[in-house]
């Protein structure tokens, strides 16, 4: 039995040795392929939201088996962090059923959502990790913080501070992470929501920034930070340090396994199995208070691809049915601000997540790879999620709607140059912090269209 996190550290130091390449191929890839075969797991690109409880259960079962059979891997020590079946099951039983984010009147309580839950998803707005020049950071985050539908917030990463380039691992990461939190706290006050919960410390990739902001002036204990799992089923000392850092301070840990569809798990079903295993293992390795569901498409990156939406949906259904826990699913569309496709991608993704049992986080517009995100698509994400529950959309109806939405945007994945749209400052008026008329017009048109396509409850 695991009594404290030092047990994990001991196992990372003393577990069986294995070369990383052998872990990838022999442990993860081979075991996952075997489980996909024995459980007869398959997916249909025309059925992105599957109405097949048996499949969701089989995915969960296979994921649990994978976690039990292989464990996790410490890249720093090249050792396997082994867990007994009982320990993993104990971790599942202890997953939080309520989690308060933020404080005072702005606090919100996260909870495990059910499949076709009538309760609206909580709306976590922002483009986590998207690179931002310092001059754009404050207005960008305020653009989504000010949206009434938003419950919690996150942010991009600063790429420069005071004109200096931020480099991973350099002392300037300490400054950039603190500056980010200064801006976030200032922005929350300016929009009149000082107690709103945050997922932050995005401006430091190494553990330096995470350590630097564990202070009530910056990231409060009622906020959260990322504790990533690496691809696939791996930890390293940097990320273990993030978990350790939260032990005494008490901030919330968001596990983040970005499982790659087409990666070591193979196609979508294997990826879903790896994602389930990652959540199960991250209960212990990341000390997860909640889970971020963010599969990545091998070639297209975006979460709005068919296979990634399928993985998000089936993983959410698998946990909702077998081990209810708090899952917040990321929306990272291919397209960026001032494109209609961004809004269609956001709608499809939000429908799939909401009906399957997830909360919403986003949008990491333009693949989260540019400062091309705005508050408007975050608003739309929340509106679509709320409409799905108001309309009590079934899984089948949701799937039909998503297929129609895909017709509106799927061609973006074939565009060699992507569909990046424009930077925040070209989509918003920086003085008023309102969307520029053209962007607002696109939003109105797409909203009307989505309503006509079948989401009538969209206000």
């Amino acid at each position, binding site marked *: 039995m695991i009594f404290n996190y030092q047990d994990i550290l001991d196992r990372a130091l003393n577990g069986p040795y294995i070369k*990383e*390449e052998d872990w*990838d*191929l022999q442990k993860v*890839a*081979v075991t996952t*392929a075997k489980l996909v075969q024995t459980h007869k797991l398959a997916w249909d690109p025309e059925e992105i939201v599957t109405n097949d409880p048996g499949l969701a259960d089989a995915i969960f079962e296979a994921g649990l088996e994978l976690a039990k059979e292989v464990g996790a891997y410490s*890249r720093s020590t090249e050792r396997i962090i082994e867990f007994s079946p009982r320990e993993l099951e104990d971790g599942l039983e202890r997953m939080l059923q309520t989690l308060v984010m933020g404080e005072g009147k702005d606090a919100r309580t996260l909870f495990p959502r059910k499949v076709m839950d009538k309760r609206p998803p909580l709306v976590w707005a922002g483009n986590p990790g998207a*690179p931002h020049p310092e001059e754009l950071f404050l207005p960008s985050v305020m653009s989504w913080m000010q949206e009434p539908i938003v419950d919690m917030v996150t942010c991009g*990463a600063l*790429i420069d501070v005071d004109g200096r*380039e*931020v*480099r*991973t*691992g350099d002392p300037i*990461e300490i400054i950039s992470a603190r500056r980010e939190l200064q801006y976030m706290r200032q922005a929350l006050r300016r929009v009149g929501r000082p107690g709103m919960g945050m997922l932050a410390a995005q401006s430091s*990739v*190494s553990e330096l920034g995470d350590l630097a902001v564990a202070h009530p002036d910056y990231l409060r204990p009622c906020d959260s930070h990322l504790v990533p799992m*690496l*691809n696939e089923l791996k930890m*390293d000392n*940097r990320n273990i340090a993030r978990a350790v850092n939260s032990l005494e301070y008490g901030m919330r840990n968001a596990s983040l396994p970005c499982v*790659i569809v*087409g*990666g*070591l*798990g*193979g*196609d979508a079903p294997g990826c879903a199995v790896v994602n389930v295993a990652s959540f199960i293992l991250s209960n212990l390795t990341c000390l997860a208070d909640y889970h971020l569901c963010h599969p990545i498409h*091998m*070639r297209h*990156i975006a979460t709005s691809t068919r296979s990634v939406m399928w993985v998000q949906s089936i993983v959410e259904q698998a946990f909702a049915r077998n081990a209810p826990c708090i899952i917040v699913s990321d929306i990272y569309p291919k397209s960026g601000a001032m494109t209609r496709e961004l809004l269609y991608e956001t709608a499809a993704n939000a429908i799939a997540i909401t009906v399957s049992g997830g909360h919403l986080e986003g949008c990491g517009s333009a*693949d989260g*790879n540019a400062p091309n995100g705005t508050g408007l698509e975050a608003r739309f994400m929340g509106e679509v999620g709320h409409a799905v529950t108001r309309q009590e959309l079934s899984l089948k109806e949701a799937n039909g709607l998503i297929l129609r939405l895909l017709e509106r945007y799927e061609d973006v994945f074939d565009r*060699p140059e992507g569909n990046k749209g424009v930077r925040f400052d070209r989509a918003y008026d920086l003085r008023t912090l309102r969307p520029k008329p053209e962007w607002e017009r696109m939003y109105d048109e797409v909203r009307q269209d989505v309503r006509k396509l079948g989401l009538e409850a969209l206000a």
Partner: protein
Amino acid sequence: MVSEADYLERIKKTIIAGEAQAAPLATKEAIDAGVDPLTILNEGLMAGADVVGRRFQTGEFFLPELMLTGRALKAAMGVLEPKLKIVYANDPSTQADTGIVVIATVKTDIHDIGKNIVAAMLTASGFEVHDLGVDVPIKSIIAIAQEVGADIIGCSALLTTSMPFMRDLIDLLGAMGERQRFIVMVGGASVTPEFAERIGADGTAPNAVQAVQLARTLIHKARQGQGTDG
């Protein structure tokens, strides 16, 4: 009687199936039967690798298949390489546009899937690839490149805040007077052709297939340049 085509087909199948034990055996059988080493390379090993590359591009194959093919190819090349060296020594014009690549995710970045795919595709295309892993200090990348006589240094970074270390590597090569010795390719989700040009890299590619094409083109150019100079 086993024909040359049968030998080549068997090699191709082992490469497509990613059989690291069977591929060198099939290669050795073909060598022992007197099949021309260049034919084994191009119509056996590379033909199999091309199939895998295409299937990966179309989404029929995934990363594990690519990695297994890389392993099989590496094992087979271990058997074939001594024979190829003799062929190349006798007639340098027969040498394919491949070479030695040192590849790494740069210092502070721990993301390796993109780099692994490129490494696997390069291996599967006949390059000798030294994959140094992730979070590799630029001095180590250069030192290994010098040690193994690399033609290409391939740097990868997913994180925007790790990309400056690619520039550092190129600057350091310049300061050491070694810039002309290596082709430097850079890659990663946020790396654009403009970035590559700005930092003085020789090129970047948006995906692994195009990275292999670029590597071949750059090697070809470099060898032509050497020929002209020489």
